[in-house]
């Protein structure tokens, strides 16, 4: 599960712990960087969440104890909630203009506070992991990666060469059920807002998606999206995040 290199004493000892969104940054690091970073990706293991963390804690005792802990748990709520699936389409409450989409006056209405509580509830298990990591690595600097925002236009499966059946099926579902782009972005922003609030409470530095990877409206640009997978960033996206991560880790305090 780990891919670590030998660390020199003067390097900050960085550990990145997270789930699917860690792949982008991990890919960027593998291809370019020489800086030793330990990656612990939940999706690389068949361990349960608790034993996953226990394993990490055992591997990072003594001189391997990290100086910087970077986490990225969850962050996909907007992708699920941004689909109609078998549910009814809906409009979401918004401070400006009242609702998103603005013209959808015949749809079910979900007030913004209700959506916030739905996302908070869905994030509860991930918050627990984050808290555990925070409590274990006392004295380390903590950083947290934000997920990339959604694409404005969901690509069709036929736009990609050689994608797995799972990705094809996922793209087909997205094509049929994805809600309006502005609505998906609004849900993403609520999710980011909650992540930021939690991070602030725990004195964790947030690393937001890089501006270069975003459209003027705030959507992820297609060039920064994983191949056949509109919910995750690619290596190029990961490189921008990694640059920022290293900048923050070596920046003088």
């Amino acid at each position, binding site marked *: 599960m780990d891919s670590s290199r030998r660390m020199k004493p003067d390097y900050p000892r960085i550990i990145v712990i997270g789930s699917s969104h860690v792949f982008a940054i991990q890919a960027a690091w593998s291809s370019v960087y020489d800086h030793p970073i330990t990656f612990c990706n939940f999706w690389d293991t068949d361990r349960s969440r608790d034993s996953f963390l226990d394993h990490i804690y055992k591997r990072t005792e003594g001189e391997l104890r990290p100086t910087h802990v970077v986490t990225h748990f969850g962050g996909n709520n907007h992708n699920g*909630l941004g689909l109609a699936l078998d*549910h*009814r389409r*809906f*409009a979401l*409450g*918004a*401070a*400006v*203009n*009242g*609702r998103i989409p603005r013209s959808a*006056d*015949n749809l*079910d*209405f*979900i*007030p*913004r*506070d*209700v959506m916030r*509580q*739905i996302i908070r*509830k869905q994030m509860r298990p991930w918050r627990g992991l984050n808290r555990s990591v925070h409590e274990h690595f006392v004295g380390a600097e903590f950083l947290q990666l934000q997920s990339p925002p959604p694409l404005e236009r969901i690509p069709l499966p036929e736009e990609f060469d050689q994608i797995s059946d799972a990705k094809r099926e996922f793209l087909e579902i997205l094509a049929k059920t994805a809600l309006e782009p502005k609505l998906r972005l609004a849900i993403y922003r609520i999710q980011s807002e909650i992540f930021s609030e939690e991070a602030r409470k725990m004195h964790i530095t947030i690393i937001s998606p890089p501006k270069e990877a975003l459209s003027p409206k705030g959507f992820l640009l297609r060039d920064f999206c994983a191949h056949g997978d509109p919910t995750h960033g690619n290596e190029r996206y990961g490189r921008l995040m990694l640059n920022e991560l290293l900048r923050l880790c070596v920046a003088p305090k």
Partner: protein
Amino acid sequence: MTHEDIRRHPYQGLPDRQFWSQDPALADFTQFDPVSFVPFKISRSERIVTAGSCFAQHVGRHLSEVGYQHFIAEPAHPIVPSDIAARFNYGVYSCRYGNIYTARQLLQLLHRAYGVFVPIVESWPRGLRNNGRRVVDPFRPQIQPEGFVSAAELDADRASHFRSVRRAVEEMDIFVFTLGLTEAWLDNQDGAVYPLAPGVSGGVYLPDIVQFRNFDEVETTQDLLAALRFIRARNPRVKIILTVSPVPLNATYADRHVFASTTWSKGVLRIAAERVQKEMADCAYFPSYEIITAPHVRGRYFAQDCREVLPEGVQHVMRVFLKHFAGEERVKSDDDFMQPHQHADDDIRLRIAHVERLLDVVCDEQSITNRP
């Protein structure tokens, strides 16, 4: 005419129910049943809409629990988990209108939902969060725990709410309305009636802008008749059940003891309900108030605060309700509720949980205190 045919006085031969001393509830309070006649029955397929003061919440919940169709015309979207939906008052009543305490408030809701009346003040500031843009709905001040993120969001929610209210009015088969209060606050600008005074739960109390009003029996009767006729004009087949909440006032603005205001208020509501029931076809009065407050039950149905109605009381009310309106003689009774469970501790836990659940009734009138 024989000597036997001649009654010694006009009461001779009347039914036992008309005589206090003949009431079996004197010996067993659980037998108390003051209903003599109901003009119609309810079936399980009929859509029942509930509205009114906080006691009305029990009616909808119990009807659902025993298999009747509490018609939720404004449900939470399926992605909203039930605990969050409950926190935001989805499913408490048929629509998310919150407590409707006065007949004027009911009439106003209908007029607003159909565009007959548009109040001048449509939102109250809630506080400084979100750059001071957060607002509450003056007409449902506690429908969201922290209000709405902006006046624009409240507008959007209100449009959706009114659509649901119209749907409820036009599609319901039975309308159960529980009259709760006579005291209210009116906006001097246009007469809009607020369920809570500005400042209690959002808004700012400016004595020049609002006035206290205690509706009397004439006004309450007129408002109730107007509201129900408004509904009938859009849904001629709807059958109506009126009740009066047994819950005493939490506070009174009238300069007298709150219990004196309570008896006056309940008297007004009882008279208005009786007059309207006589005036309208397919309209019944159901004596919730009487069942809970009758001397026969010796105050057993009130909690320690002498105000909240205990689950046993609600059970009694609903047992009598279903007996007469649904012909169900044996639904969950007080006896069922009192029977010992497997273990004393379990029993207590279950009872506490049950009480907490049943008493978890949104009663925004409780926000009123005389503390700053």
